[in-house]
Each structure stands twice: as C-alpha cells, then as structure tokens.
C-alpha cells in the first residue's frame, strides 16, 4: 500500500546517499484506486508537511493531473477533495521505487515496498 502520502515522506537511506535522494522515482508501477474516508482536518494538518513539487510530479507519473503545479494559497473543498484523492486513494501495488541519486531499487510487491539494504549499504 504505497500511497503518495507516504511516498512524499520517503527518501533513500543508503549509506552516504544524502543529497538528491528525494523523491524516489516510480518504475513499472501498477496502481489501484481504493476509496478512503475523507477527513478534512487531517488533510489540513498534513498540508505543511507536503513537498508540493514532489507530490505533483509523482501524481503526474501515475497519471493523475488534478493538482495544480503551484500550491494554492486558498484552501477550498474542491482542492481538499482532489488532494484527498491523490494522497490517500491511489495505491501502488506492484513495481519499484528508484533513488535518483544512487539508483538503489526498492521493489514493491503486493503493495509492500522492500526497504531492506545490503550489508555494505548500511550507514
């Protein structure tokens, strides 16, 4: 269940990979849409944590263009609905995430990304 809400928080944690390690790029993904309960309070609270450009890019990669390129200053219901859909309802089921810097591949199987590192990659 990689949703964009967690993808937006996830950087590469391989040893020595400290710059340009976010956001991870999706590769060969299969997505699934699943409805989730809408919770405006939670979204409002979460908004300051979002890296907006990374979120929009990731959403475009997955074929969703409902979000504007710039983060709007006015937060209305339509915007929250769109944000809710992008953050919480798009599930990446299969595929992989690749670090843009060190090219480490985190494979995703049945919705669970494998974040394990090899011995020489542990910091």
């Amino acid at each position, binding site marked *: 269940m990689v949703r964009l809400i967690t993808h937006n928080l996830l950087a590469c944690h391989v040893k020595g990979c400290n710059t340009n*390690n976010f956001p991870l790029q999706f590769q060969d993904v299969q997505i699934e849409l699943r409805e989730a309960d809408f919770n405006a309070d939670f979204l409002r609270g979460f908004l300051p944590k979002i890296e907006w450009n990374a979120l929009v890019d990731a959403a475009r990669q997955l074929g969703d263009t409902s979000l504007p390129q710039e983060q709007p200053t006015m937060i209305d219901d339509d915007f929250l609905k769109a944000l809710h859909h992008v953050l919480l309802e798009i599930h990446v089921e299969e595929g992989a995430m690749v670090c843009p810097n060190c090219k480490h591949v985190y494979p995703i199987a049945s919705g*669970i990304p494998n974040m*394990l590192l090899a011995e020489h990659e542990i910091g």
Partner: protein
Amino acid sequence: MSRPELIAPPEIYYGDTEAKKYTQNSRIQQIQAEMTYRALELLNLPPDQPAFLLDIGCGSGLSGEILEEQGHAWVGVDIAPSMLEVALEREVEGDLFLQDIGQGFGFRPGSFDGAISISVIQWLLNAETSHPSSSPPRRLTRFFTTLHSALRNPSRAVLQFYPSSDDQIQLITSIAQKAGFGGGVVVDYPNSKKAKKVFLCLFVGNGGGQQVPKGLEGEEAGERAKFEKRREREKRRKDSKKNNVKDRDWILKKKDLYRRRGKEDVPRDSQYTGRKRRPAF
C-alpha cells in the same frame, strides 16, 4: 520464560505459523491492545486532532487498528514478511513497509507527529552476524538517530520493550540520549511479575518543558489471572490422574501379595506382564 529473541531473528521467528498464532491468540491481542492504549496515553497527543503516527514493528497491525479507532493515520514498518502478509489479509488502513529498523529509516525530517512501538526494540539487542554493521550499539544508534530526525519537533516516541537486564535499559537509554532524545523510562506496575511493563518515553525537542510521566502503581486487576489459575489447576488434576495408572510395578506387587496369601491361579510373571496389548494390525 523463554525469550523469542534468543531463538531466531525476527523475520524467521515470526514465520507463517507464528504470525497466525500471534494474531489469533486472544490473550496476546488483549495485552497488545492494553499496551497500545497506554502508549497512546503516554504519547500525549493533542486531543481531537488526527495525527500521523509511525508504528515501529507493526506486525500484523494489531496496534494499528487501535490507532485507526482513535482517528489517527499511521505508517507501519516490520521486518517479518509473514506478519505483513497477515496485516494485508486483515486489510489494515496504514501503509506498510518491509524494513529492518536497525538499518535506519529513510523518512524526511519532521514526517511524523509521534511514534509507538510495542514489544520490539529488545530484538535489536542481538547480533545476527559478526559484521560490524550488525553490532547492537551500532544498530541502536542508527535506529534512534534516524527516528529522531523523522519526528516532528516537538513530539514524542513511546517504545514498550522487554529488557532482560538493567544493563540493557542503560544501554538503550544512553544511546537514545546521544541521538538527541530527552525523556526516560516509565515502568508500570514495577512490583508485579506479570503486569510489569517498561516503556521508553522519548521526547523530541522542548527538553525541560516536558516531564517524564509516572508509571502506574498497584496491582493490576484482571480477569486474565483467574483464567490462568483455573487452567493450571485443571492441568494438575490431569497429571495426578495419570499417576494412578495401574502400571507393571503395581501389578507385580498385587500378584506377590495374592501369592503370599495363598491364592490359587495367580498368573506367572513374565516379560509380558503389564504390557499394553497392541491392536493386531
């Protein structure tokens, strides 16, 4: 009591059968739920505000379900694939990661409003290989430093664990402090053998402002203990019944007694005396 962390590494110990057992056992469920509620209490989140929490060692999502109930969103990490499979079957709402917490987290700074962990970090105290990257202090350091940066300032992390000695508590708290955490250890029911629970209550930021909460005192009142006593009693009764079985010694004694009293037709003793008759085929 045997300790599972001494038997095998977690991803192997919690294989398919153990994962199912863990999730279906109502006693484990109840203990897990109680500890999760207590951990939430210690987290001291602002009321009526949905938070974004990290569940370290989420397993099959038993504590995650409680977080959902309380209206929080959560992300879970665990190293046992079988446990995560059970979590998927149970359709928990959090996002799951297959991750070794001793290798550190890759979350962006300030991602989470808090973290909980139920019965997990004692697993970090065993070295699985002789490679320097698997030495417990190094893994703990990596775990605490990356956890510290993944949490928002100010926030808390509450980690319940089962230390086997005071040295372990000492080691864990000192490494956590080096990683920048404030706070300390909270012990619930310190005088009870069964109900005693150790929580590591860590603060990010706001050092002097927050005080380490007090542990719960007194005896834990529970239905559970009663049930266990009954089961033990029943087991003892069964055992004592087994001792009444009329075995070879008993038969030989009786036959000897009959012979001494002059009773006729007492069968001879042989290698077959008192032996169980097997079914023909």
